[in-house]
């Protein structure tokens, strides 16, 4: 089941973009207001709630014992999962994860993993038998676009306030998070690049590019989506926008 955007609304959004404007009054290169609340769940080791415009995402981090992978006997394990809850949108039905949820989880995972934000090598307990696994579970409660961006932001926020379990096996002074990867999505509407599209804009866009950067501006993950295309110049412009805007969101993480 999917929602149809009325052609009137579609034309409205595109006309606005032609004039350099957006339906919520933002400039083309302006992010939505993001509010981050940390430590909202008592039952998780770390948690964060992100409100990005009307999009609402909650992430809980759980640290649990697990068996390591055979070729990395002393390294912890990172597992990222995402659920687009039925409450988040009339189009999300209960059932097995849709490809949209899988994509959110995998792109957020790549941002954290490839940037080596978590020093997994410090999370071993007993070589080959027992390590710490870091479960990052993303729940989307309300969908108004920007799910990957909001989820990635909430994931890192949750990791920054992750308190170690009160256990003997935890030997580190704090949770080993060394970088803050931030994902920013750039949409292409009427051949213009638009930052942080809301849901209506996602429905009319030709394509989107999500770029995850770390503190020094280097890229650790990218994901193009949508049935359109980008020129090489647009790729470079999108990078410039994404890395600049990531700094704004990163500043909110403290």
């Amino acid at each position, binding site marked *: 089941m999917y929602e149809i955007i009325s052609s009137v609304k579609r034309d409205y959004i595109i006309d606005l973009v032609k004039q350099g404007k957006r339906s919520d009054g933002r400039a083309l290169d302006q992010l939505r207001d993001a509010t981050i609340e940390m430590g909202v769940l008592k039952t998780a080791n770390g948690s964060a709630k992100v409100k990005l415009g009307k999009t609402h995402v909650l992430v809980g981090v759980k640290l649990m014992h697990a068996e390591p992978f055979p070729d990395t006997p002393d390294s912890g394990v990172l597992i990222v999962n995402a659920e687009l809850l039925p409450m988040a949108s009339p189009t999300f039905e209960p059932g097995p994860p849709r490809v949209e949820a899988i994509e959110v989880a995998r792109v957020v995972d790549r941002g954290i993993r490839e940037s080596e934000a978590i020093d997994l090598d410090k999370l071993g307990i007993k070589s080959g038998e027992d390590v710490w696994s870091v479960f990052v579970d993303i729940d989307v409660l309300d969908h108004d676009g920007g799910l990957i961006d909001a989820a990635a932001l909430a994931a890192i926020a949750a990791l920054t306030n992750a308190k170690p379990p009160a256990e003997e096996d935890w030997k580190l002074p704090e949770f080993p998070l060394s970088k803050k990867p931030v994902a920013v999505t750039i949409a292409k509407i009427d051949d213009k690049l638009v930052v942080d599209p809301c849901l209506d804009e996602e429905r009319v866009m030709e394509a989107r590019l999500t770029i995850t950067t770390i503190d020094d501006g*280097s890229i650790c*993950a*990218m994901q193009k989506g949508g049935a359109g295309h980008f020129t090489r110049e647009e790729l470079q412009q999108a990078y410039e926008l994404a890395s600049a805007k990531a700094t704004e969101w990163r500043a909110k993480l403290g």
Partner: protein
Amino acid sequence: MDEPEKLIVDGKRLDGRAPEELRPLKIQAGVLERADGSAYVELGNNKVFAAVYGPREMHPRHDQESDKAVLRCRYSMAPFSVDDRKRPGPDRRSMEISKVTKDALEPVLFLELYPRSVIDVFIEVLQADAGTRTAGINAAAVALADAGVPMRDLVTSVAVGKVDDTIVLDLMKEEDQLGQTDMPIAIVPRKKVVTLLQMDGHFTKEEFRQAVDLAFVGCEKIYEAQRQALKEKYAIKEGE
């Protein structure tokens, strides 16, 4: 696995290639009898089939789009395609690849010529050797053309990456697993635009630009092979 210390020694990669060199490539069109269109691609040790059915009637009816065809893509790896047997059935990785593959192919199709119908693309990896999704897209594009689906151009795909701080073309298995960056990309060669882009690893802004440029150059040879495969199907018989 005995991990090699360096992946590039004296300017040569583990399989003897230069950084900008492609693995051996073979593409054939029209290899299956029942499908409307099909193709087979060998890239290094990758062996990938693509089959296209359609445009055909779409069921269930409520999934139809009244003014154009729906493109459906399924990327799948056979259980015996990898060293550690893969359990049959779609997994999260296959589902994601199916999605990005569809987004890579759709821009060139004239979907509005076939309202209410569906075009099914099936990609099956029989033997995997890094770069399966790129081989799959190359095969799928040829299969779509083979099926007679009107297209603005073919879509050509290759992976670029960074290994031992060097930008390389068409990553092999060891480079994919141990290298610094992997970036599969698909382009519409005639229009020089990008329809698939994924990346994980580390790139500075400059490395990203270089890698994209290398991908465009690397795709030229693959594009030629795709076009040849389609023409060859009819050329051989001409001489009879």
